């Protein structure tokens, strides 16, 4: 899921400084799981805004703020309330999708969008994929070197590990040692002997659009 973190409240309040009326859009998906955009967080933000003398004229929660059709229908009520601005409590994708459907009202993010992560246990999310567009997990024992190696090295480790820990953050295990151990366990060590074919970065020039319907 997309991992988000709340922005410092002062930053959010500065964005809405000139607004008298505000609407809030939450997200029932990743941001709810991250406790950054679910019902309790909408309630909490509403209170803060009202304590600051703003009027919260409408709130809604989209199933997914990143799905245009669903957002479009949820935004009808928000637009009907005619707020001075909208605060969107989702990831950066959701904020942009909400903005497209907000009748030219300013839409502000309450969160910072961090990474694609895995909920390893309740309230703990580890970064797990960096969307490199060329998944190498089949060769690396399902441990991602692009994400878990601080240098995204694809041909093996640097010399920078000390006692199995990464030079960049000694709390992190060296990704390549994890890859080695995993491939040893699965009997696939031979996979490490191939040098990765360098495909360059031209294919990941952004922004990209993937369409199953032919052209954009």
């Amino acid at each position, binding site marked *: 899921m997309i991992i988000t973190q709340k922005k410092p409240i002062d930053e959010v309040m500065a964005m809405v400084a000139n607004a008298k009326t505000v609407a809030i859009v939450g997200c029932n998906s990743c941001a709810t799981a991250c406790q950054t955009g679910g019902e309790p967080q909408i309630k909490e933000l509403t209170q803060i805004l009202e304590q600051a003398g703003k009027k919260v004229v409408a709130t809604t929660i989209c199933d997914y703020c990143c799905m245009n059709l669903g957002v479009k229908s949820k935004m009808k009520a928000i637009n009907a309330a005619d707020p001075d601005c909208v605060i969107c409590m989702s990831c950066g994708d959701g904020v942009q999708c909400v903005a497209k459907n907000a009748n030219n009202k300013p839409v502000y993010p309450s969160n910072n969008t961090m990474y694609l992560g895995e909920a390893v246990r309740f309230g703990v999310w580890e970064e797990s994929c960096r969307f490199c567009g060329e998944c190498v997990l089949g060769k690396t024992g399902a441990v991602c070197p692009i994400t878990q190696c*601080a*240098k*995204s*090295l*694809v*041909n*093996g*480790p*640097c*010399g*920078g*590990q*000390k006692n*199995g820990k990464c*030079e*960049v*953050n000694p709390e992190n295990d060296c990704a*390549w*040692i994890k890859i*080695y151990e995993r491939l040893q366990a699965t009997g696939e*060590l031979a996979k*490490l*002997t191939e*040098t990765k074919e*360098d495909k360059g*970065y031209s294919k990941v020039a952004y922004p990209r659009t993937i369409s199953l319907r032919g052209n954009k």
Partner: protein
Amino acid sequence: MSMLKDALESGKFGVTAEMAPPKGYDFTEQMEAAELLAGKVHAVNVTDMQSASLKASGLGLCVKLKQAGVEPILQITGRDRNRMAIMGDVLSAASFGIDTMLALTGDHPVVGDCKDSKPVYDLDSVGILKMLTKMEQTGCDCGGNEIAGGAPKFYKGASVTPVYEPVFLQINKLRQKVENGAMYVQTQGIFDLDTFKRFLEMVDKAGIKTHIMAGIIPLKSAGMAKYMNENVPGIDVPQDMIDRLAAAAAEGKEKGVKGLPGKLGIEMAAEMIAKIRDEKLCDGVHIMAIGAEKNVPVILEKAGISI
């Protein structure tokens, strides 16, 4: 033609030293050291912001060394430059007659002194070697465009860390470096010859054919050795060496003589080099004096090595 290539490929015992550009733009100290090193070593590695600590760029010092009659080795890391910038530097280097290089991945910016710098790592050490080999083979740059006047040829090197667990990963990466064009390899500092021998056997067993130059770090004190053991990956100074350095310091204190541990460090480095050469363990040595380059000629003399 690369002096280091001449030496290693003709079976001579290769000798290189290492030098960092200044943290500024006054190269006086480096040029003084260069004068002492001229004629004593086959080449001098110029580091590429080692430990991710900002320095003048290596290409500048390489040019100055070349002009002073010392063969430079242009170290190139993937940390700060993408493939375009690396290739551009390589072409400029070639125009100054620089023909020896060494590819490294590079320490991450967060361990250095400009922590906010964006890490690049477009290519790792293997990728850099591969790109340059392809350039030489095809006469084309990294975009596949023909290089006017043809591609320059480099004597390409890499590094390896013999003290590494699991060592399979180092051997495996070393093999990839060699397969992609590394003609010589300099190791992380060696302090225990038995460990080094075991590593060489593994390289041999893996069928990796390259010229290996043992990394030599002259120790200055027991404190330096302990610090490196704790903080520098791949460094393992044996306790008896640390004890000898500490004893030398105690002796100096008692007699009121300064610099005894440093002198002992020079003796130990010379002893190690002589053993490596006499026992024909590998093809040469790479001396990393870490700011004390003036000691390199002394060490070589004590080891009985002239090029």
